[in-house]
């Protein structure tokens, strides 16, 4: 009887969005009288940071700091349609809608600035700090604060824009299954190191090294949040979680956090995250959806590592001590 070590690898890809159902999201952007920008949506923030990312996307597109953007979302009396937050679609679909709306608003803003500065709008650029300047002559500039005031009180313009992102629905061909299920794919490769106690069947995940390719890390700290949390959930799925431990038997299902098991703060694997960025052709600033795929590769990587450690295959999830012990006994008997 001994503690045995093993490691395993898995590589995966994951689709962004749900083309097979139709996938629309809309956004509206308008400026306040003093040049702050309101983004109106009906998208839902589940905790992944939808509001923050939409603010950064709008700010980058208009050319203002993020703290000048306000997100008003998920009120159906004001927000235009969003299909919902699922299928790793939120940042990609809503982000594209916000970009389109913000571009339209930016164009009006530049036109008003052009009138104030008596130049062509195409000669103007934003400095990202709240000012609009003439290209090549930065001393000739106007603040976005003053542009918004002018638009509202002097020139009678609405600095606003409408955005829409729609991937047309793909219908699978009946006989061949030809279809376009997604527009872009995120990627990952995970190496897991485990220890397995061959007396108790208990598995300890010592370390996971996760490499994720996500198109573009729009906010690297928030990407890290999702990837670390997702990696934890993947390990949890691999070893602990189920509502029916003896599926298809319906008995013994957990009804609280004492019975439904997940790793606690004392059970964490050493987690390494490496991010690559290959911008997607149609993502907002190249972003893909990382939220779901980040919890997938740990599961097979852990399963393969368990085999590497003790030489038995557990092909049923979760990989519980009971399943490992039964497999070890069967192996010893044969």
């Amino acid at each position: 009887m001994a503690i045995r070590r093993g490691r395993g690898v898995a590589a995966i890809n994951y689709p962004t969005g749900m083309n097979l159902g139709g996938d629309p999201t809309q956004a509206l952007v308008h400026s306040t009288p003093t040049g702050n920008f309101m983004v109106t949506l009906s998208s839902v923030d589940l905790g992944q940071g939808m509001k923050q990312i939409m603010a950064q996307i709008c700010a980058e597109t208009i050319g203002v700091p993020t703290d000048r953007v306000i997100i008003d979302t998920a009120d159906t009396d004001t927000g235009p349609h969003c299909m919902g937050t699922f299928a790793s679609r939120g940042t990609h679909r809503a982000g594209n809608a916000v970009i389109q709306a913000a571009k339209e608003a930016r164009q009006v803003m530049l036109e008003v600035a052009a009138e104030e500065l008596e130049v062509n709008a195409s000669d103007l650029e934003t400095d990202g700090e709240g000012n609009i300047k003439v290209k090549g002559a930065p001393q000739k500039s106007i603040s976005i604060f003053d542009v918004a005031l002018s638009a509202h009180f002097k020139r009678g313009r609405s600095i606003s824009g409408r955005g829409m992102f729609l991937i047309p629905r793909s219908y699978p061909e009946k006989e061949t299954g030809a279809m376009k299920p997604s527009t872009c794919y995120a990627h990952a490769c995970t190496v897991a190191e485990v220890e397995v106690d061959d007396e108790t069947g208990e598995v300890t995940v010592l370390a996971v090294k996760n490499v994720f390719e996500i198109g573009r890390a729009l906010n690297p700290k928030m990407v890290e949040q999702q990837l670390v949390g997702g990696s934890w959930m993947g390990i949890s799925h691999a070893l602990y979680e189920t509502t029916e431990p003896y599926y298809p038997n319906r008995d013994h299902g957990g009804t609280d956090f004492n019975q439904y098991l997940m790793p606690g703060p004392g059970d964490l694997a050493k987690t390494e995250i490496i991010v690559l960025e290959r911008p997607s052709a149609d993502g907002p600033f190249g972003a893909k959806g990382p939220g779901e795929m980040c919890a997938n590769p740990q599961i097979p990587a852990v399963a393969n590592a368990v085999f590497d450690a003790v030489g038995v295959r557990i092909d049923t999830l979760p990989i519980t001590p009971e399943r490992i012990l039964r497999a070890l006994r069967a192996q010893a008997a044969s």
Partner: protein
Amino acid sequence: MAKVPVQFTLNGSEKAEFVESGTTLLHALRDKIGDTSPKGGCHQGTCGACSVIVDGELRLSCLTLAETCSDADIRTTAGLAEGGVLQPLQRAFLDAFATQCGFCTPGMIMAAKVLLDRTPNPSREDVVEALSGNICRCTGYEPIIQAVLTAARANSQNAA
């Protein structure tokens, strides 16, 4: 149903309410007094989202009867920032990106506060132990552990 009077201080302010006998402190705080910072994640003492501090002790408000808290000094996350200024613990949660959906956060902060009040320089194991009754489904815990350790360092620097 007979009502019983309860009187306690909440984050330094006196509060008095009549509640049905058997009412939990969580229910009294949220639905009677209007402090919604403790969250009801399970109502059975297994998630820690409802954690509050009663006379210096960490308590699950969903398993604490309001009528047992007469004359108690009750502290919640809503009362932590003084004069609108975040405490180092709250600041550390922000800086460490230790919140995602935020639902577990007030309970985590209460658990961490009791730890730091008693153990100003905790080890990682101390932090893990202190947070072990609080469930988080988003973060994988590591950022929360780091936030508490960072807050402890900030506290000891302020004290020095």
